[in-house]
């Protein structure tokens, strides 16, 4: 199967790989997927008092499309408000990366990672 140029670019030059302090109250961590399914994404978002995402880091176990999807969302969420970040849909990710049908679940997982990270942040902030 051939990968799109954008998938290859994100795979070879992944943006924002790494970790943030998971104990920081301003950091939300989303861990989604399962090793047995072949993909696990960890997305961490640092959110300021205005509800704006200041920083994003990821680590992903998965195929090239899973790595590219998570790399892409770290780029997209930075500078966005939490509300706007929650509007990022898997179809937008799949379209941007030209994912084939068999890889759509990678984009779904990336969307889930954003939601999970924000849910974790809100929980820490006592907003939920």
């Amino acid at each position, binding site marked *: 199967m051939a*990968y799109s140029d954008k998938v*290859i670019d994100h*795979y070879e030059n*992944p943006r924002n*790989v790494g*970790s943030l302090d998971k104990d920081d109250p301003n950091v939300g961590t989303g*861990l*989604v*997927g*399962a*090793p*047995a*399914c*072949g*993909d*696990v*994404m*960890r997305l961490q978002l640092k959110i300021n008092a205005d509800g704006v995402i200041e920083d994003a880091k990821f*680590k*992903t*176990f*998965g*195929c*090239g499309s*899973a*790595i590219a999807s998570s790399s892409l969302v770290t780029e997209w969420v930075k500078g966005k408000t939490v509300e706007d970040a929650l509007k990022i849909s898997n179809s937008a990710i799949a379209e941007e990366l030209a994912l084939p049908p*068999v890889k759509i*679940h990678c984009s*779904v*997982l990336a969307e*889930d990672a954003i939601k999970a990270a924000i849910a974790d942040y809100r929980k820490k902030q006592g907003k939920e």
Partner: protein
Amino acid sequence: MVKTPIYMDYQATTPVDPRVLEAMLPYFREHFGNAASRSHVFGWTAEEASEKAREQVASLIGGTGREIIWTSGATESINLAIKGIANFYADRGKHIVTCKTEHPAVLDTCKRLERSGWEVTYLDVDQTGRLDPEAVRAAMTDQTVLVSIMAANNEIGTIHPIAEIGEIVKEKGAFFHVDAVQAAGKIPFDVNEAKADLVSLSSHKMYGPKGVGALWIRRRPRVRLTPIMDGGGHERGMRSGTLNVPGVVGFGAAAEIAKNELAEESARILKLRQRLHEKIVSRLDFVHLNGHPEHRIPGNLNLSFAYVEGEGLLMALKNVALSSGSACTSASLEPSHVLRACGVDDELAHSSIRFGLGRFTTEEEVDYVADQVVAGVNRLREMSPLYEMAKEGIDLKSIAWTAH
């Protein structure tokens, strides 16, 4: 500098040996006759060439040329063997014994027979992918007509104790079909030692052309089949259809070379495999060998790199042709049924890479691939949340993952 792309997928297919191609070429041009034409020299020449090739292929496995039926490939050979026996001998019983790690050509043929009233036992293997001959004995009943077991596995290279299994099958009075696609020409394999009644072979796995296979069918005592293909009555009525003369000539030449060079070649390839294995495990932790450490064809190395997904790793090894047991490389999104049968966790199955070494693999290529693997695994582990968690001492099994 090593020339790329590097081909390291010899269990999938092999390039045609230049000597094989040379042998084939005249049969496309001047000797183009139909081997079934009895009335002129073009037909006689083609038939003679096909008969010589039968001897060459039979000789590789200790049989005789008259026991060889030409087919379009091993998938057809396997279908003909299993369905042919099932249909011809259905009145003896309706039970087949096979193994969970067989090739889909065997498994899916058996599944189809199950839909028409056959009972099939799919035997388990141990963690190295090896079948216990006593399990065959235990599974066989007075209804068992056929036992079908591969000599060596295509994914993990594990060699089954075929002679012991054959002994038991014969004791119990059933037919024994051996899929010898990955074994023939790679390790010594003899139809009489195996006590086989039918043996499926493929040309393109032993440096012959694609689209050609053979089914060896024992003559003494005689084994009979109901054909799948009806028509002009070629191949003693067992497989109608004009012979692919250049193809079978190539298969014959390939088998002869394989026989003559087997000892030297398998020793050389084994050394290369050991070198590759050593160069990888000496520099990476959490690497698991899939398959058996010794009972293994020389050209196969199957490793799981924990915390790294196989398809992702293949992308890092883009200059090297390899395959993975990861679900992501298959259309079905199911991880390898072979690794599953060996009890390998799905997680490690997703992390598996098959290295297939062969006749044209060089030491330089092995060294290059080992370096690329080490660099690729290290890079991906730096990005892997699982590796980070494992390093922190978190038990990954203790986490409530969200399966999807």
